[in-house]
């Protein structure tokens, strides 16, 4: 027994030694490579002026003489904007699609299923590039398309009525809410792709509620609609919440595809920063830190939610 324990400790020590040697070798290479490029590690460069412009700042004032740190902050706000809107919209749309997929009507079920299958079997990036190219090929604001009253589609993006109707002043829309073409394309692609995913979650959660629950509710005199609303959905919601939270995290991660269409999200800004300064290690650390923080926060939130579920049962 003692001999085996010794062998085990020896084995671990050896493995630790190999890992340490590998890390030392990697560190030495990195140092030589950085020295050759005249760079040193450190986050001081964040205070330097960025010297690049950001097209869509999401309301935050930004000029090119502002610091890299501020540019990254603008990127973070942009990621948060598109992720928040995308989460809410994809859950709403996905919920409706998921319920429709359980309809008794075969035609309705078939139509919704085809749409979901189409989204699930094509890459998100393909949809994103297609939407971005389509929005850029739209007519100028003067000849903007009006798919719904007050909603205008042009090569300057999507203008929506919010508080007041958007109207044309000079070459652009004023009033309402104007989304840049990149933001609109990214949001549209994320919502379409993830709504399909959410609909599967919703469908699975509803199917997971035992049939006997509906039968019992109907036996108590509830109509099918009421049984669904007051008995099935509340129970399904409990099963859904953790999966929906994961879906939101994955939507936020997918919002990093913004870089492919030039929307300045946090990944895109960090990449520009890395290209301009050469500080790729530091910017990558920030990128990893941002997303890991998000994942950890959501995981902690879910743990608390599950603990509450276990405690109260509701």
């Amino acid at each position, binding site marked *: 027994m003692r001999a085996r324990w010794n062998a085990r400790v020896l084995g671990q020590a050896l493995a630790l030694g190999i890992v340490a040697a590998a890390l030392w070798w990697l560190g030495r290479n990195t140092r030589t490579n950085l020295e050759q490029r005249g760079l040193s590690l450190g986050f001081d460069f964040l205070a330097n002026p960025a010297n690049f412009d950001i097209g869509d700042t999401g309301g935050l004032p930004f000029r090119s003489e502002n610091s890299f740190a501020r540019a990254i902050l603008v990127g973070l706000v942009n990621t948060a904007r598109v992720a928040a809107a995308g989460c809410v919209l994809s859950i709403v749309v996905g919920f409706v699609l998921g319920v429709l997929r359980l309809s008794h009507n075969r035609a309705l079920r078939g139509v919704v299923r*085809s749409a979901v299958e189409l989204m699930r079997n094509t890459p998100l*990036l393909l949809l994103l590039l*297609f939407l971005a190219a389509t929005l850029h090929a739209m007519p100028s604001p003067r000849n903007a398309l009006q798919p719904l009253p007050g909603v205008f589609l042009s090569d300057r993006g999507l203008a929506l009525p919010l508080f007041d109707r958007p109207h044309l002043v000079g070459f652009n829309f004023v009033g309402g809410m104007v989304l840049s073409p990149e933001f609109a394309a990214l949001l549209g692609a994320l919502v379409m792709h993830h709504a399909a995913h959410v609909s599967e979650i919703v469908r699975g959660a509803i199917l997971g509620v035992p049939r006997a629950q509906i039968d019992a509710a109907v036996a108590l005199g509830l109509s099918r609609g009421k049984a669904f609303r007051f008995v099935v959905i509340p129970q399904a919601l409990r099963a859904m919440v953790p999966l929906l939270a994961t879906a939101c995290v994955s939507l936020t991660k997918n919002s*990093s595809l913004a870089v492919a269409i030039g929307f300045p999200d946090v990944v895109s800004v960090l990449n520009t920063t890395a290209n301009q300064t050469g500080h790729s290690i530091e910017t990558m650390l920030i990128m990893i830190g941002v997303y890991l923080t998000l994942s*950890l926060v959501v995981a902690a939130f879910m743990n608390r939610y599950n603990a509450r579920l276990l405690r109260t049962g509701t």
Partner: protein
Amino acid sequence: MSMHAAATMTGARGRRGARRGTARGIRSAALTIGAIAVAALALVPFVRWALVDARWTGTAHDCRAEGVGACWAFVGHKLPFILFGLYPASERWRPALATIVIIALVIATMLPIFWRRHLVMAWIVALGVFLWLMGGGGPLGRVATQDWGGLPVTIMLTVVGLGMGLPIGVLLALGRRSQLMLPRLTATAIVEIVRGVPLVAVLYLSVLVVPLALSTGVAIDKLLLAQAGVAVFAGAYLAEAVRGGLQMVPAQRMDSARALGLTWSQSMRLVVLPEALRIVIPAFISIAVGFFQDTSLIVIIGLFDLLNTARLAAQDPAWLGFHTEAYVFVGVVYFLGSALVSRYGSWLEGRMATSRRRA
């Protein structure tokens, strides 16, 4: 309650039920018509555009004429570029053949009758042939990886990524379940970090930071770095699936194998892992489908997969304005690949469920 009263109640409910049945019938018919109308609203213009009004031959000028729908002439004209990228025109048979070899082997791998030890050998040979056809050597002229593009790149990233990802995933899963601290912490950190960040970040990390740490003066091939990055990414996701499979294997399996005198690694290799991997096959297939689509993200680091060649084809000044055709075309390729493999996954799952019930 008397019998008579009960009978009256049933009668009343019956009549009311019938009336409700009619109402439901009308509502159902309305829903059917509505659903078909929505489908028609989307499909009819699409079919008109894609088939009825489409132009299959001719020039960009012909396509721009009034009333012309889809310009498939553009896709036809650009097809060699979309499929094979910048690969030298006279040598295009090489990527074509290389792609066919891999697709044929993928199909063979999907058929349970070929699940033999030889399959691993066949894969090693096929990948060798693929690399030789693509890169050249011997009688074939050399073609640098920056000229590789299109479908073979997408297929290589997917197949090699998953092929390397599986052993990485098994190692990470075993590491995470290890009782030893060092492997457990390392594996957990790798899996959680890779799964916690977007694939875009993993790709940037592999082309921007990894060369800094690895290279000692020589530039490392970008496609190779991207391939390694996507393999680690696949490995982290597969590790969680394999870990789930390992958890489903009863602990007694290991105990009985050890009691029979097998060592830990023999028991793992011959008893536990085969059972765990069998459980993981459906999850593996769904991860594979997602991964096939995710390889398109290498657009972001400037490599030419199928999606990027289509995007670039649509930017040709001579053929501006036909991006929809390019994206619809590659969309169909991705759709067919993903949908067929998904279908295969559910078929296999059903088959495995029946064979388990019989056992």
